């Protein structure tokens, strides 16, 4: 009896310590973001202040980087979702030569280190004038997520019963209308999850905009945060404030789509 209790205590102690290890940086981040500039290091500040947020949110460079981050991640998200629908439908519903091979190719691409393509892309973008443009970043980020989007969406479409599709076709819907009225609405939970997944991945992507953009007014927040470290003296409290702002969209999206997430992860489409 006592032995079991002891084991419990030890396990919980270890778990608590682990949790703390993960939490401490966040706590520090929050504390730091409300601290005056002179509070350096891991200490409780003498006063709390909103000044770092105020400074970050009134600084047009930072505002612009948030705006750029949103445009680039959302643009790329919708690009890949829209371009995934067609192939996902074809892979799910049509049979054609080399289908399995192609499908395996898509699956392989989901794990492919696409960053290795950044150098040739860089050169290609310079040649075609896409270098240092928002469109260029959106295109690359969009393509990056396309394979996994196709794969997940195909699996979602697979769960729609054949007879429902057949009913819609006999009822007069062509392929496109069947997609719009039947397939996409029935896959809405998965779509929501995909949108979040894509957005969070794009929002957090550092290398792609870092390499494909040069003008500072185009840099998204992910790159802008990094540029803090190049400054002569790092303003840690502002860095912390910007980092917190940086995490907000992902958190908001998760909360917003929680309902869909649970649905999507717990069993897909049912009649």
């Amino acid at each position, binding site marked *: 009896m006592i032995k079991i209790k002891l084991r419990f205590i030890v396990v919980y102690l270890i778990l608590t310590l682990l949790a703390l290890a993960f939490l401490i940086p966040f706590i520090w981040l929050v504390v730091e973001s409300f601290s005056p500039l002179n509070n350096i290091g891991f200490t409780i500040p003498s006063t709390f202040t909103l000044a770092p947020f105020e400074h970050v949110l009134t600084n047009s460079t930072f505002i612009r980087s948030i705006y750029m981050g949103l445009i680039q991640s959302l643009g790329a998200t919708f690009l890949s979702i829209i371009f995934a629908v067609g192939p996902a439908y074809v892979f799910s519903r049509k049979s054609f030569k080399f289908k399995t091979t192609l499908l395996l190719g898509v699956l392989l691409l989901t794990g492919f280190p696409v960053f290795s393509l950044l150098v040739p892309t860089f050169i290609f973008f310079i040649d075609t004038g896409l270098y240092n443009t928002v469109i260029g970043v959106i295109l690359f980020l969009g393509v990056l997520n396309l394979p996994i989007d196709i794969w997940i969406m195909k699996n979602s479409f697979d769960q729609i019963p054949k007879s*429902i599709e*057949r*009913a*819609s076709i*006999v*009822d007069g819907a*062509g392929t496109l209308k069947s997609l719009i009225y039947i397939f996409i609405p*029935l896959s809405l939970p998965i779509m929501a999850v995909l949108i979040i997944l894509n957005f969070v991945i794009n929002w957090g992507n550092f290398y792609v905009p870092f390499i494909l953009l040069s003008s500072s007014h185009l840099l998204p927040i992910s790159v802008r945060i990094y540029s803090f470290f190049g400054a002569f003296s790092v303003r840690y409290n502002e860095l912390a404030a910007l980092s917190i702002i940086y995490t907000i969209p992902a958190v908001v999206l998760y909360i917003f789509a929680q309902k869909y997430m649970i649905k999507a992860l717990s069993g897909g489409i049912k*009649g």
Partner: protein
Amino acid sequence: MSSVEMKNITKMYDKVTVLKDLNLKIDDQEFFVLLGPSGSGKSTTLNTMAGLDTPTSGNILFDSEDVTYFDPNKRGVAMVFQDYALYPHMNVYKNMAFPLKMKRYKNDYINKKINEVANILGIKELLKRLPRELSGGQAQRVALGRALVRDPKIFLLDEPLSNLDAKIRSQIRNELKLIHNDLKKTFVYVTHDQQEAMYLGDRVGILNDGVIQQVGTPQEVYSHPKNLFVAKFLGEPEINIFELDKNDGGFKIGGVPVDGHNFDKLNKITIGIRPENILLEKKSERDMPLKIVIRAKEFTGSGFIIIASTDEGKEIRIISDQANMDVGDLITAYIDYEHAILFDEQGDSINK
């Protein structure tokens, strides 16, 4: 006006031939039932009519117009599926409105039409419900409704009642018959249930292994089956089969010779006698006596099914109004030879 003709339809999936040179003529306004066991190709036949499948070879004509390669929505057919196939994310109203929306009808018309059909089918109170909130019977009514609002030339129904319990099945079956009488449209109905087929069909086509075995009115196919398969597939309990070898230049059942004039060339025949054609009392001179031992009696409500065995140990079934004998009794029954059906060695029916 909408007749359907299938000419030399062959359908192959990869190397498997599912329909073999199938020919069918379905008349305008006919209630045609396609009957066959599971895997015989009924759905495939229906799907090729609907345009959901394309035949490997052969042609499909609607009113002598070749529609073989028409898209489903160009054919003017409505279809009802075994699993209802209601759109799960739309309520009943929207489900029924869907085919009309696809045809760009005005909302006023759609509304009027849905109310009209909902009244006929008694689903008015369900219009706001989602498919998952419906019972099986209700869901199938809605699926029927979705077909009815369209006013199609041809109705295709793929085992629409097979997921329902007996009571609702017979109820909707009756309604279907009445709807067909009212609408005067062509119905093609697929089922594996022979009783349903006989009840509903103006004519029945029996399909086995992708080959049409026989087409005819329910009475024709029941009383004059073209082959053993049809004879055995129709009727409940199953037809009694006696396989006979030639003996002393003739055939005998229970020691009694079978009369017939053209047995000369045959070494084996099969006689099929429906359970209601084995009599407990002799009615005509040609009836053949058969000694049997009663094994069991089943009360069916309107009569009895008697299970008995012959001298040779063959089990037979008899349908009878009354059964005033006991299990174990040895009695003489009579084969109504008038209604016996003869088959040759290949299982094709032959004249007596």
